[in-house]
């Protein structure tokens, strides 16, 4: 296929650089500088897609971000698949491969299209819900087919090899949009010395100036663009970002810009200097002032069959002709409500093709552009509009009639004008999306027939977004805005004299949204309001009739302004129709909320480098290499990678854990306890602080001693626990749970800073400074004696003491504490000595068969002793007394420590609270399920009162049976009772309520 719609001259394309591309399997050619859409039009491709719901054939309608139809699936490789790309925004490159998003088996012959063309009556809004409502059980089945029939692209099934970056910026002035106002603002702010970021979503900066008919300072507008960009490039504090969309506007002038860096070059990012370039950048900009120069989008008119390929926006027609040298048809009918639309007819005529007629809704069109059309002998039909397009896959004619706008009716007879293109212009809608993202409601301007910004602090709107349509006004507004922004950012703003632009006399526009048809809206041919979502005027009318009168309800019922479209073309027309039907004004009807993102963004760009380990960093202890060497299987505990168990050979997890448990009970085991949180506490009030923070007493703890402590929130619920050692009178070493470390430090800071600032106490996290190796088991002392340089006898180093020592020749703190119930020493050394000490332990430990064990064995061993794990036995609703830990509650401490008062509230005093118990399954082989609910009766009835749940459950090799810890209502009074627990497979197990301490209840084993 040749480029039959390509003009011989003109446009900003490079005819010496032809590019090949593939669309729906057909090989085509375009030129450098084309978009995919302009290249498709050049090749005469009318049908580029099928519509979302009715599967109607659709063609290119717009030339930019507002395109509702030409949405394609891009990518020549599986990994490079990108869904929902607007062909109007995709630069053409050699080898580009694109497919229509919808259409089965293809866009030209579509099966769903049959259903859609059987008539709109069959698929009104809510069609799917109304039709497939019963039986409800069948909905999942229906949904599968509906999803298949209605979709917008697919995501790649391979992972994306491309790299995406995030960048942070602070600037004085961020300018969004590099059309006339944005460039003017950048010049004013830049010359004032402001740090400026100017971004624009298009391939080239210049906006409307790139296809303008007007002159600036006597030269074509595009030359002025080049001059300004050249000057801005010389200013050191001005950053120019083309191909960059400001997609989200967040609080306090925080704007996210999405820069596409390689998507105009290839499917996947190309290599440069042997490295893959980053595909996109997300710029996170905090700006003192934001100049919104986003311009305006032309509003199409809503008339019958306005979606048949060949129906286009007037401005888009001009853009394709003037910027891309493509004329999208042979014969044109223009339907307009304003002077600006005339440019399409003038450009069409000047390109040497036929303008059949300009149909102007105004009775007496008058203005310089109207005069220019008349001077070319173009037929102007006034007081009229195109009420319907004819044709199936391409427009064949336009039905034109005189209309009464006020009365919303067609007057007199209709006439049919043969043409292959209908351009329409219903005026402009300011692009206020970014002004509305932070929640400000836009304000209706009757003089503009559009909404403008409701005013965002720190934001200045300029040019088209402000309703300043003419080039002269837009430039003037831009210069003012740039200077004002610089001044408000604290700079001495310089005044820039605007360049000379000839004034254009403009006739007054008229407000027309939906064009009346000879038939009422409900029976007229489909008049599309939102083509991307297949929302028609009749659909909106039906929605309001069915009671969806709020515009937000209309939106949700019909789909108006949904999805990637975000109401760019359809919103105002939709509101106008809802307003007409409900007999309200448009401001009374109001607008829906615009949300980020303005245009779709690849997830990769949002994620940036925060992938895999950089998304959630993993923490490894200083002993990690040793664990790897010993074949550890790991589990994630928070961010930590902790050894879970150490299988030998082909050993199963169960067997490994049983072996590790026996090794500790009979010999000696070694656990990496480094992940426990460690906080140094110093200051003359450190001891008093601990007294207030912990539930138990710290007044008498001497240097060289350790104590277990329990922490509550002020509601009396247990929040953390750990052992704290007294290093010196005013110096303590606290340990916390692995997961609670950061939270406990925050908690201490909170109380110290806000409640007890008078206490002189300081905290410092030392978790990563120390590595902690627990050696535990009956042979632990013998092993310690071989590596430590101190007397480790029971007399010299009793339980709950700590000692400073040299272990394997390096300084260490040894804590004689036990979480297994066996004789235990926790050896702490500086983290960088970890591997040295570990190696020494295993060398000396070989003769005792020193067995490394992981978290699973640690869990079994501590549960046999009834030691709780915060967060496993507790869930924020458990008091120390519920855990049976009254021994750890200092009721007599003078200060009302955190949590104490709450322990005497009626609810915490209830005797039927859930309390910690042990459960011994009657069948010794049974291991109850963690989380299993406890009931008191064997027979199931409804309702079945539940009395608690299992918190921990294991098989104990030393006990020879399964056992569990559980929280049970009134548990301390139920010792010896039989309770019942169901398991996932439906079977019911009986268990006896016993003490939570299963092993060595007298604690003789660690007191040796």
């Amino acid at each position, binding site marked *: 296929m040749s480029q039959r719609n390509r003009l011989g001259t003109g446009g900003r394309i490079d005819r010496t650089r032809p590019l090949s591309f593939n669309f729906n399997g057909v090989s085509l050619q375009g030129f450098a500088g084309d978009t995919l859409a302009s290249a498709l039009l050049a090749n005469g491709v009318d049908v580029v897609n099928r519509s979302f719901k009715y599967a109607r054939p659709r063609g290119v309608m717009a030339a930019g971000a507002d395109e509702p139809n030409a949405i394609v699936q891009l990518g020549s490789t599986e990994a490079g698949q990108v869904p929902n790309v607007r062909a109007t925004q995709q630069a053409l490159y050699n080898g580009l491969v694109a497919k229509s998003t919808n259409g089965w088996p293809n866009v030209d012959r579509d099966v769903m299209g049959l259903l859609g063309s059987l008539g709109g009556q069959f698929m009104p809004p809510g069609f799917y819900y109304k039709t497939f409502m019963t039986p409800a059980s069948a909905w999942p089945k229906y949904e599968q087919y509906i999803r298949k029939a209605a979709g917008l692209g697919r995501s790649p099934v391979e992972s994306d090899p491309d790299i995406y970056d995030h960048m942070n910026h602070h600037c004085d002035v961020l300018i969004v949009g590099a059309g006339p106002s944005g460039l003017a603002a950048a010049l004013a702010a830049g010359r004032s010395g402001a740090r400026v970021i100017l971004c624009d979503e298009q391939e080239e900066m210049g906006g409307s100036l790139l296809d303008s008919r007007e002159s600036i300072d006597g030269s074509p507008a595009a030359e002025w663009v080049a001059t300004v960009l050249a000057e801005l490039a010389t200013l050191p504090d001005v950053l120019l970002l083309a191909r960059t969309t400001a997609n989200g506007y967040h609080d306090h002038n925080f704007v996210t810009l999405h820069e596409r860096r390689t998507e105009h070059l290839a499917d996947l990012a190309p290599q440069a200097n042997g490295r893959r370039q980053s595909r996109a950048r997300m710029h996170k900009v905090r700006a003192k002032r934001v100049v919104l120069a986003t311009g305006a989008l032309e509003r199409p008119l809503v008339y019958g069959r306005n979606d048949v390929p060949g129906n286009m926006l007037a401005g888009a027609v001009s853009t394709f002709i003037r910027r891309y040298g493509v004329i999208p048809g042979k014969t044109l009918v223009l339907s307009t409500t304003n002077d600006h639309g005339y440019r399409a007819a003038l450009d069409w005529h000047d390109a040497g093709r036929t303008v059949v007629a300009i149909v102007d809704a105004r009775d007496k069109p008058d203005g310089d552009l109207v005069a220019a059309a008349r001077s070319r002998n173009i037929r102007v039909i006034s007081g009229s509009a195109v009420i319907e397009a004819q044709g199936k896959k391409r427009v064949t004619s336009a039905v034109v009639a005189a209309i009464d706008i006020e009365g919303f009716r067609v007057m007199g007879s209709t006439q049919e004008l043969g043409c292959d293109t209908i351009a329409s212009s219903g005026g402009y809608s300011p692009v206020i999306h970014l002004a509305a993202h932070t929640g400000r409601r836009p304000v209706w301007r009757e003089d503009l027939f559009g909404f403008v910004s409701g005013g965002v602090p720190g934001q200045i709107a300029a040019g088209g977004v402000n309703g300043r349509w003419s080039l002269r006004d837009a430039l003037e507004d831009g210069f003012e805005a740039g200077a004002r922004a610089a001044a408000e950012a604290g700079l001495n703003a310089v005044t820039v004299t605007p360049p000379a632009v000839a004034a254009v006399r403009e006739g007054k526009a008229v407000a027309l949204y939906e064009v009346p048809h000879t038939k009422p809206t409900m029976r007229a041919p489909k008049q599309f309001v939102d083509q991307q979502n297949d929302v028609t005027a009749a659909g909106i009318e039906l929605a309001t009739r069915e009671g969806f009168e709020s515009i937000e309800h209309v939106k949700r019922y019909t789909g108006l302004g949904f999805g990637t479209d975000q109401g760019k073309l359809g919103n105002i027309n939709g509101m106008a129709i809802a307003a007409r039907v409900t007999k309200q004004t448009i401001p009374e009807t109001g607008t829906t909320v615009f949300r980020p993102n303005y245009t779709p963004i690849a997830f990769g760009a949002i994620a940036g480098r925060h992938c895999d380990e950089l998304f959630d960093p993993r923490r490894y202890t200083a002993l990690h290499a040793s664990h790897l060497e010993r074949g550890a299987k790991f589990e994630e505990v928070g961010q930590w990678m902790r050894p879970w168990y150490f299988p030998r050979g082909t050993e199963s997890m169960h067997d490994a854990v049983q072996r590790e448990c026996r090794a500790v009970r009979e010999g000696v085991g070694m656990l990496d306890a480094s992940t426990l949180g460690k906080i140094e506490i110093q200051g003359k009030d450190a001891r008093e602080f601990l007294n207030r923070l912990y539930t138990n007493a710290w007044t008498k703890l001497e240097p060289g001693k350790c104590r277990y402590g329990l922490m509550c929130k002020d509601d009396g619920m247990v929040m953390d626990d750990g052992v704290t050692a007294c290093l010196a009178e005013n110096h303590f070493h606290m340990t916390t749970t692995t997961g609670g470390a950061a939270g406990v430090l925050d908690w201490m800071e909170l109380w110290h800073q806000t409640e007890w600032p008078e206490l002189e106490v300081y905290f410092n996290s030392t978790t990563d400074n120390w590595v902690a190796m627990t050696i535990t088991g009956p042979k632990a002392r013998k092993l310690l004696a071989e590596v430590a340089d101190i007397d480790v006898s029971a007399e010299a180093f009793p339980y709950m003491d700590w000692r400073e020592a040299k272990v394997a020749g390096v300084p260490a703190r040894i804590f004689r504490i036990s979480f297994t119930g066996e004789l235990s020493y926790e050896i702490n050394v500086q983290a960088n000595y970890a591997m040295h000490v570990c190696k020494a332990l295993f060398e000396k430990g070989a003769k005792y068969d020193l067995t490394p064990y992981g978290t699973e064995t640690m869990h079994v061993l501590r549960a046999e002793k009834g030691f709780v794990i915060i967060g496993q036995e507790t869930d924020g609703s458990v008091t120390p007394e519920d855990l049976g830990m009254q021994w750890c509650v200092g009721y007599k401490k003078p200060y009302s420590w955190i949590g*104490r008062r709450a322990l005497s509230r009626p609810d915490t005093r209830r005797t039927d609270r859930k309390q910690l118990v042990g459960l011994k399954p009657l069948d010794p082989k049974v291991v109850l399920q963690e989380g299993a609910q406890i009931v008191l009766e064997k027979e199931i009835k409804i309702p079945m009162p539940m009395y608690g749940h299992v918190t921990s459950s294991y098989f104990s090799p030393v006990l020879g049976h399964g056992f569990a810890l559980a929280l049970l209502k009134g548990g301390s009074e139920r010792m010896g009772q039989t309770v019942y627990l169901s398991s996932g497979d439906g079977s019911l197990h009986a268990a006896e309520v016993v003490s939570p301490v299963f092993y060595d209840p007298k604690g003789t084993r660690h007191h040796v």
Partner: protein
Amino acid sequence: MLHIYCPHCDEHREEEEFRSKGEAHIARPPEPESASDEDWGNYLFFRKNPRGLHHEQWFHAVGCRKFFNVTRDTVSYEILETYKPGQQPVVTAESRNGSASDKGAAK
């Protein structure tokens, strides 16, 4: 994303450095053991959820690690002031309403 002025650091920093800690000025009854159950319950559990001006406690968690207070409009997200613990807000609902009723009186 909010841009928050830390009164300890004396500069504006990004919200991601901070953590919100809920309503500010929650006074712990000075004599907990003699406080009634109801008073203690109110202290523990009841919080304001105003539409408009709100005094909040924030924590500069990955900055100076200090707590401070923020007066913020929960509708516009505008931050009207930040101040250190122990200080009282200058902008309050009363001061705002006060100015409004002044206008009313002028009518």
